[in-house]
């Protein structure tokens, strides 16, 4: 589609897109390169990178393959990022849409509700939720989703408020279309581009959040994730820099790629920024 075309004409965004595509490939197929789990202690601990041909990034404190950890971590990071974003959208969009479309007391009630979530410091809330429901991929994903939906609701509400009085929406009402229809078929498709942009950035934020939680020891113990790797490597950062360095780079790169794509999308989808007309 033309969006893709526009995206790929933006070199920086293209770079992000390529990195992201590679990451997705690694996430999907990477684990098949390793027969067993990334937890397997394959060699002596603290082997620096490049020392052993089959262990390119060396081994960690327990003699586990760092590269294997990174590969498995990709999948989990992307998955947690994507799913939590999806849940946040599933909460935020209907909420924001109803608030923005119906206005009045519905708006008031929903926005007060949103405000409560926005008033509690989000990272602290995420920590508490994960700690309370005990760390697992599910609780982490849920916690991230729960703290990240309010901006979605606000954005969607804003868009709906702006669009609900657009003439094509009025026309649809005159046509006798139901509210349900108008929300879903008339307005929602027109709010998609800012939502997509926001979602791409939310995935990035979610990945950061997941790694922060893991770093604090609130990761899923069954799962090798980047944040876990850094958290576990923190105590040995002096002996083995590579243990926290590589996962740190992996996170930064992923988040960077997502941001680049997000910005590229923003430019491609938002005519205000596309700079074709400046007057």
């Amino acid at each position, binding site marked *: 589609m033309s969006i893709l075309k526009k995206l790929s004409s933006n070199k920086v965004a293209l770079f992000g897109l390529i990195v992201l595509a590679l990451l997705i490939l690694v996430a999907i197929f990477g684990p098949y390169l390793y027969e067993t789990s990334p937890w397997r202690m394959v060699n002596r601990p603290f082997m620096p990178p490049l020392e052993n041909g089959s262990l390119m990034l060396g081994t960690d*404190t327990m003699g586990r393959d760092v590269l294997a950890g990174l590969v498995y971590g990709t999948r989990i990071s992307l998955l947690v990022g994507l799913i939590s974003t999806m849940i946040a959208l599933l909460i935020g969009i209907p909420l924001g849409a109803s608030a923005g479309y119906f206005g009045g007391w519905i708006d008031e009630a929903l926005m007060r509700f949103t405000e409560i979530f926005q008033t509690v410091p989000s990272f602290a809330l995420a920590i508490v939720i994960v700690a309370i429901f005990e760390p697992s991929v599910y609780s982490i994903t849920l916690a991230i989703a729960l703290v990240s939906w309010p901006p979605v609701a606000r954005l969607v509400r804003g868009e709906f408020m702006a669009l609900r009085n657009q003439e094509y929406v009025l026309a649809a009402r005159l046509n006798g279309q139901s509210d349900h229809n108008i929300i879903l078929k008339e307005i929602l498709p027109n709010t998609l581009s800012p939502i997509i942009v926001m979602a791409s950035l939310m995935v990035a934020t979610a990945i950061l959040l997941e790694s922060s939680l893991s770093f604090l020891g609130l990761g899923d113990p069954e799962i090798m994730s980047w944040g876990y790797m850094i958290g576990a490597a923190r105590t040995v950062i002096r002996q083995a820099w590579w243990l926290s360095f590589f996962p740190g780079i992996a996170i930064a790169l992923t988040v960077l790629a997502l941001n680049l794509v997000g910005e590229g999308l923003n430019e491609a989808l938002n005519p205000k920024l596309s700079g074709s007309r400046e007057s």
Partner: protein
Amino acid sequence: ADPVYGGTMDVVVQPEPPSLMIGLYSNAPTQQVAGNIYEGLLRYDKDLNPQPLLATSWDTSEDGKTWTFHLKHGVTWHDGKPFTSADVVFSVDKFLRQTNARLRQSLQYVDSITAPDDYTVVFQLKQPFGPFIGLFETGTMPMIPKHIYEGTDYKTNPANHHPIGTGPFKFAEWKKGSYIHAVKNENYHVKGLPYLDDIYWHVIPDAASRSVAYETGKIDVLPGGSVENFDIPRLTALDNSCSTSDGWEYFSPHAWLWINNRNYPMSDKRFRQAIMYAMDRDFAKNALWNGYGKVAKGPVGSKTNFFNKDLPDYEYNPKKAKALLKEMGYDGTPVRLLPMPYGETWQRWAEAIRQNLAEVGIKTDMVSSDVAGWNQKISDWDFDLSFTYLYQYGDPALGVSRTYVSSNIAKGSPWNNAEGYSDPEVDKLFAEAATAYPDSKRQELYNEVQAKLVEDVPVAWLLELEFPTIYNCNVHNLIDSAIGVNDAFGTAWIEK
């Protein structure tokens, strides 16, 4: 070199103690700090022999039931009031009996505590109690000022915020979240002590920061367990950095895996034995504990009294483990593994053991939880396998039997017989051993019970832990008793 006076010592305390009122809170960080402020009647040297402190001498009757303690003259509390036998009676009979759960168990054997005069205290026991003379250390039986606490609500007494003891250091200030400051007690009852002017205990919540603090010279003493084990070789290799494993003899922390004996497949002895064979405890000792510690042979630590030297070994032998599993017809039911939320090393250890178990065909699901959740799960018996480590307090009757006797099976505590092991013979042997007299008789009984337990594997013993204390070599005489940094730093001094 000769001791010199003066100087400030910076010590790490982790985590921040909840309170310094040692009579109410008997956890390690409280004792680390308050051990300098409060004192018990006795101390113990590194071979666990009692030494005089507030009591200058003690004697026991022929039948081992009457113990008489003679108190030191001229001891004063930090507020200037004299310390007398009335304080001892109040502390033990009133205060600690009410507040200290662990001591309460032992006080069951005590019939009465009386003070014939100001400097004599007599403990009358119901029957001989082998470990009795081991109860007088600061953390177990601290002396509490009667004139401050009598007739008050102990828990809310304002003095809890400004502890008054007889120790070589006086409480000065506690900046919550940052540090605790104690200064020299000029009127300390041991002439010439202490050497140090003051001590700061720093609260540094993060282990990595603690090692950086030591490295940059901000901290003189890292008590055992306050940095991650991975850092120990590096920190000890620094210039002018010393380390010692001394000071844990009294506690001799013993680590094991709880095995919930109630459920299949753990209910099968062969399964439990298989676990013992499956674990590579030497690897754990070397990779995780930097070679510190000792692979545990059985329920009693090798430094604890009445250790049985002739127990068989469970060596690392996956083949044997697999054979045992096959023999019992293990169907591959996965078991839950609950790591101990006490830091990196424990987490890594759980990962290693999970891998060990996986290799012999036992699938584990790791369950994650924080300290509270972990406590709760163990207390509620909601686990299959879980880590723990417990102190032995120098005597199996104090620190070992509690884990194995069936009278101690009760929901609600993570420190009793949580694994649910029950064997009448073991119960009987432990009960007899605690009150047998003299020690040779006890040794016999304990040997027997250890052999029985090692065969049954009610829990999977891991290591006798050692937590080396790392300190600046300018500090001398840091550790001079069996409780190490938990004792007062009265004799410690800093070379200029």
